[in-house]
């Protein structure tokens, strides 16, 4: 099954803007969708959230067996050389099912870090470990007072007797509580806000001096606050060049943006579909409420917002591989701004058009709304990216 789906995935992705899926891509889409449909109704998801690990090991294993975890990694490291379209397909499907497994943390964020900064040995070791589903990772960057400022890093790392000593506190580290290895960003020189002087470290979660407080987040996932007191790791724990981590961090964030963009499209499409269905079935004043033009127009506005998001998610997928950093930066800021706008319009609209039932835990729409509200604030919100854009010259 695995090789079957995957080997045919090396499809042509050219200039043609061929947004329709090839047969292979369609096959991929179908198999992910089936996996999610079988494992992810609201009740099953609820049970997974309440379980001790906060994610399903069974589902994670299934994703690994289908080859989805290693899909986008290079075949030199046991991956399948999947392109941005394949990545989009998977994430969109995850969005549809509101998947809470640690894909973003382990595969997208940590995977990007390793791919872009690790040496060959670590690449083959870690990428294959995470693709197999045997190893979980997390990316510990944000701090209590960093908000969206990527260069705000107060956690320190000092080289002492051939070991790096890390001190500081990281917050809301996505899936930090279940990770085997944590990528920690720390300042190796410079002031708290300087882009120069940040480095990345691979830290096994069990290392002495690490305290992890893990808790559920509003969207059903898990995050952790991580305290590092005199955590000591060997010199080769350094990921990438010393002091030059900022560009890697930015690259990680950009992959995160492209990923949540695709995921949000899946989630938004679901909200739209559910809402339209509801408008057709809910009766008030002796007719389906979908008869009322204000509701039709609001649904039409939501549709426009979803389609705009879809367009920009495709754009983002194309731009993740752009070589020119300025262009890529601009594209990702544009993407996240549009995604934020759409998430809000669609999420809020979905709740409003459902009336009272829209704000309950028992009904699906609220869960989508919560995830979309979280995505709005992941990797920078609308205002943040608008400001970023407003400080740049458009590269077009």
């Amino acid at each position, binding site marked *: 099954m695995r090789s079957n789906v995957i080997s045919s995935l090396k499809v042509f992705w050219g200039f043609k803007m061929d947004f*329709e899926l090839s047969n292979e891509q369609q096959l991929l889409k179908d198999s992910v969708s089936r996996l999610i449909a079988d494992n992810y109704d609201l009740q099953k998801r609820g049970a997974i959230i309440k379980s001790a690990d906060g994610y399903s090991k069974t589902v994670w294993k299934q994703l690994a067996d289908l080859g989805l975890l290693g899909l986008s990694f290079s075949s030199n490291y046991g991956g399948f050389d999947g392109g941005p379209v394949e990545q989009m397909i998977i994430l969109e499907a995850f969005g549809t099912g509101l998947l809470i497994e640690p894909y973003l943390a382990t595969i997208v964020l940590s995977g990007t870090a390793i791919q872009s900064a690790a040496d060959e040995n670590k690449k083959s070791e870690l990428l294959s470990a995470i693709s197999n589903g045997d190893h979980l990772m997390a990316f510990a960057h944000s701090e209590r007072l960093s908000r969206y400022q990527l260069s705000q890093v107060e956690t320190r790392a000092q080289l002492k007797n051939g070991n790096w000593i890390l001190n500081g506190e990281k917050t809301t580290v996505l899936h930090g509580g279940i990770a085997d290895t944590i990528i920690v960003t720390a300042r190796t020189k410079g002031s708290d806000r300087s882009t120069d002087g940040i480095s990345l470290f691979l830290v096994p979660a069990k290392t002495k001096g690490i305290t992890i407080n893990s808790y559920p987040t509003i969207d059903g996932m898990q995050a952790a606050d991580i305290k590092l007191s005199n955590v000591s790791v060997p010199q080769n724990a350094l990921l990438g060049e010393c002091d030059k981590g900022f560009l890697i961090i930015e690259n990680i964030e950009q992959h995160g943006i492209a990923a949540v963009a695709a995921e949000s499209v899946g989630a938004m499409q679901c909200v739209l579909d559910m809402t339209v269905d509801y408008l057709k079935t809910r009766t008030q004043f002796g007719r389906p409420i979908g008869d009322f033009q204000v509701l039709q127009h609001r649904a039409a506005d939501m549709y426009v917002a979803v389609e705009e998001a*879809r367009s920009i998610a495709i754009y983002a997928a194309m731009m993740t591989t752009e070589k020119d950093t300025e262009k890529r930066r601009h594209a990702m800021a544009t993407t996240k*701004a*549009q995604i934020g706008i759409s998430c809000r319009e669609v999420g809020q609209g979905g709740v409003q058009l459902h009336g009272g039932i829209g704000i309950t835990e028992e009904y699906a729409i609220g869960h989508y709304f919560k995830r979309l509200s979280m995505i709005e604030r992941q990797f920078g919100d609308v205002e943040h990216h608008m*400001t970023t854009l407003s400080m740049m010259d458009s590269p077009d």
Partner: protein
Amino acid sequence: MTEYTEDYVRKEARTWLENNWDPNLDLFEWRNKLADSGWGLPNWPSNWYGRDLPVGLVPIVEEEFQRIGALPIPKSGIRMLAAATILNHGTEMHKEKFLRRIVTGEDVWCQLFSEPGSGSDLAGATTKAVMVGNKWVVNGQKVWTTSAHKAHWGLLLARTDMDATKHDGLSYFIIDMKQPGVETQPLKQMNGYASFNQVFLTDAEVLPDFQVSELGDGWKVATTTLMHERRAADSLRAWGQVPSSEGPIYDQERAEIETTMAPYKWYPQRAGRVDLIMQRAKETGAIKDPAVRQEIAKLMTLHKSAEWTARRARSAQEQGKPQGPEGSLGKLAASNVARAAAKVHTMISGAHSMLSGDDSPENGTVAEVLISFPASSIAGGTDEIQKNIISERVLDMPKETRFDAGKPFKDIPRNTIS
């Protein structure tokens, strides 16, 4: 079918242009060359002045035109809608007679759809066509008819059966505008132009051959025209930009824009002139104002999403999918962009944005944006109508309550002015 690749098309186009483009040619001589070679409208059928090229590859050809400075076919105006309609529904005679002169731009076309009593509710048209002897005789009034005063031909929606229901009683004709029964009266707009007209049809004549599709098919054919109009909305901003190069052929095109193409002079303004924003912001120093920069960023984000939505639509078209309601998406996006652009222009230029004449920003262009952009959300079907279309056709929501369904047209309440 040939397997086209980007490189192949680029090379072919480049070679042809290098061998044929000459700025000293007469404008119409050049356009005839484009018609004969198919490079003017390469996605058209090869037997009708095109090259059967997938739509997605057209931008490659356009890039080559730009690179060498060659004048493209002006892909603007009702004549392109006429072409799309004729290619879809026309007879061989129609194609033979009209298409070439559409490509060369020798004929001007207009769209006789809206009436005083039926705008959004286009199917409520009351202009009548009655067969007298062996000719159709047309009586009624049309309004908002862009370019009617310049037009040789009109796309006419008229009622041929009062006993049929509203949508079934309409037929579609091509009418000769240069005949005694057609009288046009210009209407002046708030932006100072007079691009549209009232058109009075008094015993105007149409030969039976000039009917498009079957009797009673008028609504179906009009829908094709309208879908193309909506689809075109995203390329509005490219219309009517006067080339700035020196040379006789450019002079000739400039002269054309001043006359037959006059309405398209302000169409770019109604689309918001996003292209001027950065330049204006830098010139005025407004770029230093963080609030302005933020608004510019918003506009550009909107613009980028709209651009990619249009690309997706083009890609769908390329895959041979029929023109669908997604044109409404593009049209709504275009009015959002126009609105946002007008707002940003105002922020940048402040009170100066209200000036026209020599001292004004961009020779009055900015002022023109401010009084022209409202047309974007009205012309070609209002924003509200686009949302109705999306809700009914895309989301499959209940249809609006109709008071006219199933009844013969003559029994339906109508505006008294019609």
